[in-house]
């Protein structure tokens, strides 16, 4: 009874993870290929779907706790799914932000060729995918590797910002477009942070260890 319901919940959160992952991919592909329809799909179809699913997953978690009073790993799983659910919904909002800025940018000349941004997006999507995979496979090693890769995405964001600032200083007509590019990079960086959260959640589910706020670096996660 309980495990049947818990498995359904797991399937549902994985489905949500996959949907959110595809939203980021579409928003970046829409930017690169100047595909307006794809960007609108993220905003008008996918994002409302994630909102619905978020509410449904919340309810499933609350019902399971209320009806079965789970303990130990079962409890950790449900509580962490509740947190992941929140983070995934935030990621969907960020994919929407990216699509909105992309819609602005594809109608105008590019400030600069897109080189670092697609690489940053790829790394971010890999982190998100691995964090969800680590949940599916109950793999704390993979989860930890996600947490460690956050620095790579941070470095991309700093690099992109530096570059955009030089463009804005030399030609103020680029400012609005540059700010949209910066918004995309900032959202990608936040997505990577949330993927890290999911990685931390998976480690807590499997090992019961808290590795948040850099505790894994000092080996305090016991």
């Amino acid at each position: 009874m309980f495990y049947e319901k818990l498995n359904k919940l797991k399937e549902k959160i994985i489905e949500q993870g996959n949907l959110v992952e595809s939203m980021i991919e579409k928003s970046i592909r829409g930017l690169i290929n100047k595909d307006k329809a794809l960007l609108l799909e993220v905003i008008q179809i996918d994002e409302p779907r994630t909102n619905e699913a978020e509410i449904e997953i919340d309810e499933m978690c609350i019902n399971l706790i209320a009806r079965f009073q789970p303990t130990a790993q079962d409890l950790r799983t449900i509580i962490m799914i509740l947190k992941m659910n929140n983070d995934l919904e935030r990621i969907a909002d960020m994919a929407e932000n990216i699509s909105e800025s992309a819609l602005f940018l594809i109608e105008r000349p590019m400030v600069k060729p897109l080189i670092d941004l697609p690489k940053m997006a790829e790394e971010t999507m890999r982190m998100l995918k691995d964090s969800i995979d680590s949940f599916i496979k109950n793999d704390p090693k993979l989860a930890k590797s996600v947490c460690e890769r956050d620095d790579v995405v941070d470095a991309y964001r700093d690099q992109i910002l530096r570059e955009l600032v030089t463009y804005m200083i030399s030609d103020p007509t680029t400012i609005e477009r540059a700010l949209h590019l910066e918004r995309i990079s900032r959202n990608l960086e936040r997505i990577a942070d949330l993927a890290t959260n999911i990685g931390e959640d998976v480690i807590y589910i499997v090992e019961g260890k808290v590795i948040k706020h850099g505790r894994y670096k000092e080996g305090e996660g016991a």
Partner: protein
Amino acid sequence: MSDIVLKTENLTASYDEHIVVKNVNLSIIRNKITAIMGPSGCGKTTLIRCFNRMHELSPKAKVEGKVLLIENSNEIIDVYSVDPMLVRRKIGMVFQKPNPFPTMSIYENVIAGYILNGIKLKKSEADEIVEESLKKVSLWDEVKDRLRKKGTFLSGGQQQRLCIARALAMKPDIILLDEPTSALDPVATAKIEELIEQLKDTVTIVIVTHNVGQAGRISDYVAFMYLGELVEYGPTDVIFTRPSHEKTEEFLTGKIG
């Protein structure tokens, strides 16, 4: 609303002028598990004993209002205007303490409803009913080689499953379970709970329990009774997370009961 199998209309039950169930209007949904919960003395057992006319067997007991049984064919039976034996065949009951008939074998216990009602079964028919009923309660493999032994030799959990098989053998529309696990250990309890879950495809289950955890684990719908009144009734997911009545909230959070 889904398919209703049993409906009470202004049902009131009393013992010797003392009213224990007050004006209850309740619709039980077919092929679902409905749990009736509430503190001791709230009238939950009396309520289900009115469903199959067991209440009137107690001295000075009185029932007012209606109980309607709606059959698969949509035929409506007014429970209090037909032969009580017919009602009890259609609405079976399992009690708190396992009570296999002590003089009967396991085999005879399963078909006891037929024997006691004077219904003659062919040997092949009886064999089939016994096997099918014992399989439904997952007892067949454990007892098939000792069907002629007394049912009282079984463990408590097995005895309770035998009693459920006995109720199922009559092919009832509804089975009423009155605290069916309160005399059992946790392992036997888990087995019975699992069994109840499996049975709902073939029969509607109404279970009385004072155990909030059990109501939460196994039921699709919950009715909460307090001082003889039906306070709240609805899907278990809703009642357990956001009950509308203060009394339900107090009961679920352990403040009363």
